[in-house]
């Protein structure tokens, strides 16, 4: 059961986890990313490439499902304008094996936070705004999964 959604709307983490728990795997791991209000941030805008972004997320989810024995996995990613404290991204994985649930969850969130086709613009209290630049440290976190596969 692979469920991938790119959406503007908020989502309910408790309901998403309950759905994964109901699959009977016995173990459910999750990661939720939220907008931090650092440096007087008032808005984080997430821009997607309509169609391509969701296809890319589905591709990485399918790759995780091949790599780990999962009973199910859910990926939800929001786009559009978000304010501090709002959820951006959710990854939930269910498995009989807790290591499989935890590792696939870490794999997916590392990729989502680095390789996913999104662009972020930060707007601050003083009216300034800037597009976030890609970070080398994030690329390294995603890269270790490639290393592990070699």
């Amino acid at each position: 059961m692979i469920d991938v959604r790119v959406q503007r709307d908020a989502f309910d983490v408790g309901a998403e986890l309950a759905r994964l728990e109901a699959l009977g795997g016995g173990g459910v791991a999750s990661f939720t990313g939220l907008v931090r209000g650092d440096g007087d941030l008032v808005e984080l805008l997430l821009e997607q490439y309509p169609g391509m972004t969701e296809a890319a997320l589905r591709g990485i989810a399918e790759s995780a499902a091949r790599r780990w024995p999962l009973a199910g996995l859910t990926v939800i990613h929001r786009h559009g304008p978000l304010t501090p404290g709002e959820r951006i991204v959710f990854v939930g994985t269910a498995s009989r094996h807790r290591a499989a649930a935890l590792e696939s969850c870490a794999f997916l969130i590392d990729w989502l936070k680095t390789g996913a086709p999104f662009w972020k613009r930060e707007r601050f209290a003083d009216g300034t705004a800037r597009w976030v630049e890609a970070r080398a440290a994030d690329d390294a976190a995603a890269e270790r999964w490639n290393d592990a596969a070699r």
Partner: protein
Amino acid sequence: MALDLLYFAWVREAIGKDGESVDPPESVATVADLLDWLSATDEDHNRAFADRGRLRAAVDQAFVPLDTAIAGAREIAIFPPVTGG
């Protein structure tokens, strides 16, 4: 050869629109050629495409290097490196 172009993030803002339909001449063989050709059309494109190291591209929704041939392509997107979610 009619092409749909899509722009994202600051590329979109610099050009002032989120896409356009173009019909480049035969001599435009690669994504980089396309950027050169568009840069010659007006100052906005020229400024947006000035630093090629900051640009990435997708041809028909697949990420490609800028020297990729565009023959047969229908949709080409130009954007900064993705920053993830």
